[in-house]
Structure formats: C-alpha cells, structure tokens
C-alpha cells in the first residue's frame, strides 16, 4: 500500500522541485538588474566601473547623501506625495460614488453613463495625452499640482470594480437600511462603503502605486523643476550629475522606495486589486 502511494508522490515532488527551480532562476534573472542597481548606488564613483563584486568591497551612502543634499529630491518627493495622495483619494472616492450611483440609483441616462464609462475604458489614456496637454495649458494649469492631478483622475476601472461589488451585495442589505429610514447618502457612507472596505483599500493602494510611478503625463505637465515628481525629477539627475552612475542609481532607488515599501506592506491587498482589475479586463 505504502509503495503504491509513494511513487506518484515522488513524481509530483520532482515536478514541483523542477518548477520551483525554474521559478527561482527566472526570479534571479528578473531581480539581478535591480540588485545591481542597488549595489552600484552603494559604491564610490571610481569603483562603479572597477568593482564588479556581488557585494561592494567598500559600501558607502555617499551617493544618497549627495543626491539628497544637491538635488530637489525632497521637493520632488513632496510633489509626488501631493499628486499621488490627491489622485488616490479622488479616484477612489469618485469611483465609489459613481459605482454606487450606477449600481443602486435609478436616474435618467444611467445606462448611457455606464456604456460611456465602459467605452472610455477602451481608449488608452496616452492616446489623449495631446488633448490633455492642450486643455491643461489653455486653463493655465501647467506646472501646477492640480494640472498634474486632473487628467490622472480618468480611471474607469475603479468605477467598474465598485459597480460590480455593489451589484453583488444581496438586495436585503439595502432594503433593511431603507426600512430603518436610511437616505441614499447614509446607505452609501454607512452601509455600502464600509462593507466594501477591503476593495477600497486594495484599489487605493494600486492607484497610489500607479500614480507614484506615472511618468508620461507628469513629465509633460511639469516643466518647472520645482513642480516635478520624483519619477520625472530623477531623469534630470543624469544631466545634473553627468555620468555618475552611483548617484543616478541612488536617485532611482530613492524614487522607487515608497512604492516598494507600500507594496511590501500591503502585498495581499495589491494582489487582490490586480486580480479585481484583471477580472474586469478579461
């Protein structure tokens, strides 16, 4: 009996081990440039093209200190924070409100609005970037936080995810609240939104990461160095510091640090959010 069970178990283990090995190799290949960037940022300038050891012989934080002291990195951080927090709050709040309205309220044009949102989902934002630039320039919002934020609020996927979740709630929750005398606002803020708190946090984290990492629109909208976000600012580091790889890579690490931290802290929520949006994208 034991033997007949042992054979398939061994075969399965072998397959799983091979798969694990392959995954590890792929992960090493993927992670090596990131690792190399981090260790290079910890080397002295003259060592970056001489020291090829996996662990730096004389690690230093000099590049980081230099970047922080000699660039606008703190201001870029502040700009990124303002833009990302603003975009996150507005996208999630407006997505939840719109999702609730389309899912739960009866008003003229509800279906038309839903189809418009679905249709807008099919137009890539980069295809509209010239129009965005012209509009934002016309209303004199270039080089302002609001100018960077406004076009980034177009996030139909958030509305779709919320609508799906609100549609999926048993109608008895709504009816019980209505019988208790709830208004639509109370229903939204006190029943529907808190009941979907997991979705809200997941969407907030993924929106924050997306806003922090966004490059093309902030690059166009913020030409003034004092209004740049971190992702845009670090491209200026190269010009500022010439070919000082250590400093450039230290800037890149600093730019990616908040997002990496957010990801590590909220890994499960991010995965949940990606699954949700992936489900929508089909």
């Amino acid at each position, binding site marked *: 009996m034991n033997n007949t069970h042992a054979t398939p178990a061994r075969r399965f283990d072998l397959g799983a081990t091979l798969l694990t090995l392959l995954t590890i190799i792929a992960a090493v290949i993927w992670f090596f440039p990131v690792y190399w960037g981090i260790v290079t940022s910890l080397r002295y300038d003259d060592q970056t093209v001489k020291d090829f050891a996996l662990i730096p012989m004389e690690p230093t934080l000099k590049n980081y200190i230099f970047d922080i002291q000699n660039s606008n990195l703190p201001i870029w951080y502040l700009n990124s924070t303002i833009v990302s927090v603003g975009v996150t709050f507005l996208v999630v709040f407006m997505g939840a409100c719109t999702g609730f309205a389309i899912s739960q309220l009866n008003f003229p044009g509800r279906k038309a609005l839903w189809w418009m949102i679905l249709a807008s989902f099919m137009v890539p934002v980069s295809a509209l970037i010239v129009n965005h630039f012209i509009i934002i320039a016309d209303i004199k919002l270039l080089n302002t936080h609001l100018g960077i934020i406004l076009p980034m609020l177009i996030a139909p996927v958030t509305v779709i995810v919320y609508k799906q979740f609100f549609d999926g709630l048993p109608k008895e929750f709504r009816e019980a609240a209505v019988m208790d*005398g709830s208004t639509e606002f109370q229903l939204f803020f006190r029943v529907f939104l808190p009941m979907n708190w997991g979705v809200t946090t997941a969407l907030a984290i993924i929106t924050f990461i997306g806003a922090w990492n966004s490059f093309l629109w902030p690059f166009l909208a913020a030409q003034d160095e004092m209004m740049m976000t971190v992702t845009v600012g670090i491209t200026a580091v190269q010009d500022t510091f010439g070919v000082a790889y250590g400093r450039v890579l230290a800037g890149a690490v600093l730019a990616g640090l908040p997002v990496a931290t957010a990801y590590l802290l909220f890994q499960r929520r991010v995965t949940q959010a990606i699954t949700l949006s992936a489900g929508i994208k089909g």
Partner: protein
Amino acid sequence: MASVELTGLAKRFGAVEVIRGLDLSVADGSFCALLGPSGCGKSTMLRMVAGLESVSEGQIRIGDRDVTHVEPAKRGVAMVFQNYALYPHLTVAQNITFSMSLAGEPKAKQAEAATRVAKMLQLEPLLARRPAELSGGQRQRVAIGRALVRNPQVFLFDEPLSNLDALLRGQMRLELARLHADLGRTMVYVTHDQVEAMTLADKIVVLDKGKISQAGAPLDLYNAPANRFVAGFIGSPAMNFLPARANSDANGLQVTLGAATMTLPARATLAAERPVELGVRPEDVHLQNAGDGTLQGRVAVVEALGNTTFVHVDTEFGQVNVESDPALRLEAGANVGLSFEKNKVHVFDADGTTLPKL
C-alpha cells in the same frame, strides 16, 4: 398595535400578474402566516406591505392609516429578512440600534435600547461581537432585535427560519411564539413550511398563483380544506389522493373506487355520476388483512419513526401512505388491505373544489 387590511391588492411585473386582486384582513395582535409554494406571490405580498415593492392596484391599510404609497420607514412596520441582512462591519449592538443611529439618537439612548433588546433575546454577552462570530440562531435573534428596537406596530417575517437546521428551527419557533405572546403585536409571517405556519399562526393564508386559496385558523384548514391544493399543501405527510366516481342517493354519497364501493356522508346532491377525487390523510387510513378493506395493495416501504410508523402501500391507484401503530411489524412486499375513516374522507370535484358535507 394595528391591524393590516389589504383591499383589491394587485402586483404586475410588466405583463405578468404576480398578485391578483387580493383581499385580506389581519386582525390586530394576530399572528398571520402566508403559506404557499415557491412563486405563489407570498414574499411579494409581504414586500408590498413593507413598502419595498410598489402596488400596481389596491390599497394597504395599517391600523387606521392608508400606507399604500407611504415610505417603508414611515409605515410602522419592521421586517426580518430570510438572510438576516446583518451588516458585517457592525457589532451586534450597532446592528440592533442601526435605525436609531441613522435617526441621530443620542449614544446613551442607543446603548440603553441595545441592552434592553439584548436582554429580551438573551444576546447580552454577544453585544460586542460581529455577525461573522455568531451562530445561525444568534444571527436570527439579532435580526429580530433590530426589528424590535424600532417598536413597530406590525412585524413582518420573510421565511426567517429557512436557513436554520431542523433542531434550531424548532427552538426558534418556540422563541417566536413566546415573543408574540409577550409583545402581543401583529405579525405577518411568510413561509413555505406548513409546520411553521401550523404551529405559530392563529391565521393561515394559503396562496396559490397570486390568489388566496383559503384563509382561516390552522385546524380549520387542516380539517376542512376548501380545495385540493390546500388539502395537499397542509399536513405532513401529505394527504393521499385517489381517483373515484361519485353519485348521490338517499343514503349519502356513493363512491366507486375501482371494484369497491362505499357510502360517504351526504354532500351537495350530484345530478349524475361523475369523476371525483378522494382525499384521505395518512392517519385516517387503516391497515387490514389482505382481502379485507376497500382497497388492496402491497407494502412498498416501511418508515418506523419510533413514535409512529408510516407504511407506503402500492395500490392500483398509486401509492397510499398509512400512519400505523408503531408496534406493528410489517415487511416490504406484504399484501395488505386498506380501509378509510369515512367521516374523514374529503371529496374533491373535477375542478379541485371540495364537495362540502351537508
């Protein structure tokens, strides 16, 4: 306290008429069960009384008020839902006082109300828990507490026990009966379980395809069903139905069942012999030796429940369920005869209506 009066109530979803010109009066303080199979319109009717479903036609009065077009929260009714509809993000206390919280009542008043209701329903140790941490029966009690705290004139229950297991359902039935006795409020209770309706209600309304088939006291419906539908729906195990022919004579109703004939108490005089259907409850059929009785058959299944035994007998008219003495030992395959309590045999006309005894 208030009565519920429905007059000419109708509900249409497009071309489909779910409730058809329904009239019903539920007396103040009574416990009325709306009973019927799935899709008969009982839940729709309850939701119309609650205000969750609009009325296509007719009028709803609660007490002396016409509430046909009044908002649900202002009708003086509270509803307990089948799936309880407890908010998972709120504690038991917050769920119970949700309506007070929406109305902006002071926290101290809410806490006092939560404690009072929890005491009535033995929920005191659970006030700080969330619904996910409660058992089915406890959730049910919280849902009832949420209705209680509103101090409504009328309680509406939409199949509140259907998600519970048999044991818990029995316990909750007792608790509901006690609650009704304590509060003395009007209660309207939707169920498809005739045992719940029979044990809890003082009035049962049997619905069929959006119309009232019969309304009355539970035992009246059991002993004198108005038609075949009610006869088949009320009673567990269900009534046996046998095709026969009947004619009136001076002695009463002459019934021919296969080769056998029997005389039943007189019904309305039949002008000529015609096909009818006999209805006999399992407890009104008796087992006889093979060759004796009105009908012959062979035992198919014996269900010994301890306190009673049900014997399913295959006959030329289909299977007949007999409630017999639990001491009787019978094996499947045995030949038996069947006789009927003639006074308890129901006779249904071809259209399903009962031929009442004179």
